[in-house]
């Protein structure tokens, strides 16, 4: 079986950690900085970092439409932390000087609230029960967002203290924590399966 070819959006943030984890599972990985880098990929990871910065750079390099087109053509997307914010249909907690609005891909039927767990001193790690995994996942939450609302067709895969922190909708995966900062590759393996799965007829 050939391993999927995955892109990691490398504008800013923890893109190297995702790359290493995916490569450790045998995937071919390309760093995506410009629209042309999306060619031939089956999946794209949008890493943690600062969502305002990544959104700014996506606009500067005209990446919004190409990433939406990539997904429409069957590409899988996974957003971690800032990346989850960028996948969501609706974002709460955007900076006032942005008019309370933050650009996003609006592909996944979620409402996400930025920095929902507080400032850096409130960041934490915790064992997280994830649907489909036998043992808890060591989840690292850093100035993390929460998923406040999910639409129909969105499957909730994990909650922390009652708040949704991992969800899937078709070929879209959103986690408000950072699987790339741990040695546990199970969620990366899940995403590779998602990206390699045949498209529904």
């Amino acid at each position, binding site marked *: 079986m050939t391993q999927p070819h995955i892109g990691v959006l490398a504008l800013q943030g923890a893109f190297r950690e995702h790359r290493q984890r995916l490569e450790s599972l045998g995937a071919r990985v390309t760093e995506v900085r410009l629209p042309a880098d999306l060619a031939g990929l089956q999946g794209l990871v949008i890493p943690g*970092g600062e969502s305002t910065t990544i959104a700014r*750079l996506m606009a500067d390099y005209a990446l919004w439409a190409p990433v939406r087109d990539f997904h429409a053509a069957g590409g899988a997307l996974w957003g971690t932390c800032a990346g989850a914010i960028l996948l969501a249909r609706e974002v709460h907690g955007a900076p006032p000087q942005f008019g309370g609005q933050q650009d996003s891909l609006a592909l996944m039927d979620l409402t996400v609230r930025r920095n929902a767990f507080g400032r850096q001193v409130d960041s934490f*790690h915790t064992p997280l029960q994830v649907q489909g995994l036998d043992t808890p996942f060591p989840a690292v939450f850093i100035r993390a967002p929460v998923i406040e609302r999910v639409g129909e067709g969105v499957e909730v895969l994990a909650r922390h203290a009652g708040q949704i922190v991992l969800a899937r909708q078709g070929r879209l995966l959103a986690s408000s924590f950072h699987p790339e900062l741990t040695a546990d590759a199970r969620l990366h393996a899940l995403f590779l399966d998602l990206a390699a799965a045949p498209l529904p007829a």
Partner: protein
Amino acid sequence: MTEPTQTGTAQIKQGFAEMFKGGVIMDVVTADQARIAEAAGATAVMALERVPADIRVAGGVARMSDPKMIKEIIGAVTIPVMAKVRIGHFVEAQILQALGVDFIDESEVLTPADDQYHIEKTKFTVPFVCGAKNLGEALRRVGEGASMIRTKGEAGTGNIIEAVRHARTVLGEIRSIQARPTDELMTVARDLQAPYHLVQYVHEHGKLPVVNFAAGGVATPADAALMMHLGLDGVFVGSGIFKSDNPERRARAIVKAVTHYQNPDVLAEISEDLGAPMTGINIDSLVPAERLAGRGW
């Protein structure tokens, strides 16, 4: 192996620093400047009363900023807010932690409070970044609990030479440790005056145990890209933005330069027509007492 929920661990603090990678952290002195920095794509802002260029002009003792100003900046932006404390001044650090600052810079740019000891940073929930001009200094700071290291450079000069010197020194020393056999590492640790287990880490991994940024003298997009090419993870810009003719344009250009440092076509495009950069200072003209990089022990 189920552990309870934990905050303030080394994993959390170092992981947070990982999120800044490929990004630009900008010095700001007002809430308005913080908003400009956020809109330009800064990954964090550093709140301080005077940028290093003005600290040089003003002279006197430079201290932690007024909490009122820091709170205004925290209220103005949603990106992380950093602030500086004097070397060794753990009470200033306690105050910043109480204010909810996201990261503390124990900085040689401010007047040192202690001429022998740095802050014991493991005692804090908030993470720290410290400056270093060589590997021994960097590993001593990590040993004290720093979650991020930056070059010292020569802040407030708009002159990149010292930052280049510090980056090449640290990265060259890392390469030379990698080449040593393991039975020589204790002597390496002695010579560097660095913790042995951190020397072992560097030998095994070929990098610092924490994120390593450039700081001190970055004034142009090309300066920022140069530091990324040398092997650093991101860039701090102080006086370089708000002491230039057109801060908005220059800030955005430096953010793009850090992302696209390997693409000279993009760098050429973004370096065009930025207006005048900050006026630089030739470091050779500074008398020793005016050099900030020499502070720290």
